[in-house]
């Protein structure tokens, strides 16, 4: 007996290959280094030090991204048994890990511009951003509910602080409180679902019961045998509800406009891109893993959620003049389009390509739009209205182009990358014969063109005023120019990214 346990533990410890998590570990170490700078830096040289911290964070993340891509064979061991089955890697999780580092690089760039404007502490922001990124990367690789929950909470708690980061601003604090209350509520739902699944799957009276009820692969086998069990269905629904909160899908979308408006702009960008992407990917993984056998039960429910999400997001956004609320509400509708791809993934496994392509383009376009917000915004960034963008193109042609390309790609105008993303999603939905959802999505896209174009029109209208032209630094021009070129390029030759994904 003792021998059995010892050999079992030995086998487990052999599967602890820390090397495969080196990128995540380096991110965490980098975040600690950044905090260290604050301890030893002199207050008199604050400006130099802040710039230095930004460089360190940016270079570190770029180096880790390069490391991850170059050392792909050692950091992405698909199919091997890692950490006693806690971690499971595949080509899809590898892509998502790269995506999250890229997202966190973008947020770091936005944050450096925003924080010096708003005169907020820097090191803590970069620190939390890196930790959230590491949490996202662990989340997508987890193959067991304990690691899943802990890494999800690592992300969520970092986000609570990031949302309330502007602590002298009542709006930011209020947004933080709302996000915290609803986030904790959704975690409780998620947990109760996990517990029900764990409890029922270990029940010795049921066929195919397992002692490893948290393990995705064991759960999949159990649910396959007991797909009609009510507790299994309730548990699965509660887990999905908890993830829908991250995604911003109906009925957990109420927090989005308030939190997006109150949070500091880089945090809003982080919430809109990485957080949503994590929700999407986790949902795909759960639906193709443990909940696969429940597809007949879940597809109608998810279709209803998807329909309401698309319509709610678009209709609410069309009457909105506050830009951050507008981006939040239109983000809900983007979550709806992505849900369509997720439902299609039940029937067509290749729909991951379409979803990932859409997420990448959404990341790039959002980066442009939020970058523009940071350039434009003055004191009260939460109150920025569409009117503030009037005549932007004549004031600064570069910023105008940036806004038009970013918004155009979000709306899905033909030569831009966002169009291809929408086309791919509609294509997989067509293959999966989800005709009703395609109709709803088309209606949604038409409504979205209306409000995105209202914004673009405001930028293009000429306005005679004495307001001085808005300056943009040379470095920013290079970064944003590169992203603009990328969006146009991916719209013209989408094959580059698609072949990488495949």
């Amino acid at each position: 007996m003792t021998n059995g346990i010892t050999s079992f533990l030995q086998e487990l410890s052999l599967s602890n290959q820390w090397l495969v998590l080196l990128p995540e570990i380096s991110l965490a170490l980098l975040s600690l280094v950044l905090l260290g700078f604050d301890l030893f830096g002199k207050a008199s040289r604050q400006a130099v030090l802040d710039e230095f911290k930004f460089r360190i964070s940016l270079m570190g993340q770029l180096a880790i991204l390069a490391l991850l891509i170059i050392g792909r064979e050692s950091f992405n061991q698909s199919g091997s048994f890692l950490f006693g089955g806690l971690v499971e890697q595949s080509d899809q999780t590898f892509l998502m890990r790269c995506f999250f580092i890229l997202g966190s690089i973008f947020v770091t760039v936005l944050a450096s511009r925003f924080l010096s404007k708003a005169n907020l502490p820097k090191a803590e922001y970069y620190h939390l951003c890196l930790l959230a990124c590491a949490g996202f990367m662990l989340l997508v690789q987890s193959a067991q509910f304990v690691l899943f929950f802990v890494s999800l909470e690592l992300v969520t708690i970092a986000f609570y602080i990031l949302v309330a980061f502007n602590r002298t601003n009542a709006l930011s604090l209020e947004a933080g409180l709302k996000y915290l209350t609803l986030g904790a509520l959704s975690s409780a739902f998620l947990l109760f679902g996990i517990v029900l699944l764990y409890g029922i799957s270990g029940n010795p009276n049921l066929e195919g019961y397992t002692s490893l009820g948290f393990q995705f692969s064991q759960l999949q086998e159990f649910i396959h045998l007991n797909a009609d069990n009510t507790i299994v269905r309730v548990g699965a629904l509660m887990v999905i509800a908890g993830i829908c909160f991250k995604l911003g899908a109906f009925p957990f979308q109420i927090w989005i406009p308030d939190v997006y408006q109150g949070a500091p702009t880089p945090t809003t960008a982080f919430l809109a891109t990485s957080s949503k992407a994590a929700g999407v990917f986790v949902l795909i993984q759960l639906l193709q893993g443990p909940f696969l056998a429940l597809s007949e039960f879940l597809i109608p429910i998810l279709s209803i959620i998807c329909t309401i999400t698309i319509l709610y997001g678009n209709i609410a956004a069309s009457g909105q003049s506050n830009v951050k609320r507008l981006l939040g509400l239109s983000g809900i509708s983007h979550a709806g389009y992505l849900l369509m791809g997720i439902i299609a993934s039940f029937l067509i496994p290749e729909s991951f390509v379409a979803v990932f392509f859409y997420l990448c383009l959404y990341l790039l376009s959002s980066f442009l739009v939020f970058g523009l917000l940071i350039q434009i915004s003055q004191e009260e960034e939460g109150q920025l209205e569409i009117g503030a963008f009037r005549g932007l193109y004549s004031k600064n042609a570069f910023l105008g182009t940036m806004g038009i390309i970013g918004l155009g790609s979000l709306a899905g105008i033909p030569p831009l990358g966002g169009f291809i993303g929408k086309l791919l999603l509609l294509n997989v939905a067509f293959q999966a014969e989800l005709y009703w959802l395609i109709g709803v999505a088309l209606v949604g896209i038409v409504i979205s063109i209306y409000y995105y174009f209202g914004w673009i029109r405001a930028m293009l209208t000429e306005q005679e005023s004495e307001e001085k032209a808005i300056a943009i630094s040379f470095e920013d021009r290079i970064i944003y120019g590169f992203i603009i070129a990328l969006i146009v390029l991916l719209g013209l030759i989408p094959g580059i990214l698609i072949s990488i994904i495949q």
Partner: protein
Amino acid sequence: MTIGINEFIFSATLLFLIGFMGVVFRRNTLVVYMSLELMLNAVNLALVAFSRYNQTMDGAIFVFFIMTVAAAEVAVGLAIIVMLFRKRQTISLSELNELKG
């Protein structure tokens, strides 16, 4: 009469629902927080009961993770509440409605 798994799960579900009602209907932020804790503790109770009934340790160990995470969550939450109170002199959810549109 022996108390079995059903009684435990029933009371855990009841606690969870009471907590949920508290989060939805109470207006004082601190009471909302207590209700959230109640929901998490309902989860813990169910986990321990299932863990005992199913004869596996995983559930009992998961409880420690949940307690740690809940403690971290509350630490951040209380800090936000204190800052907000200094700023607005209220923590009633019905008065915290500056974000609207």
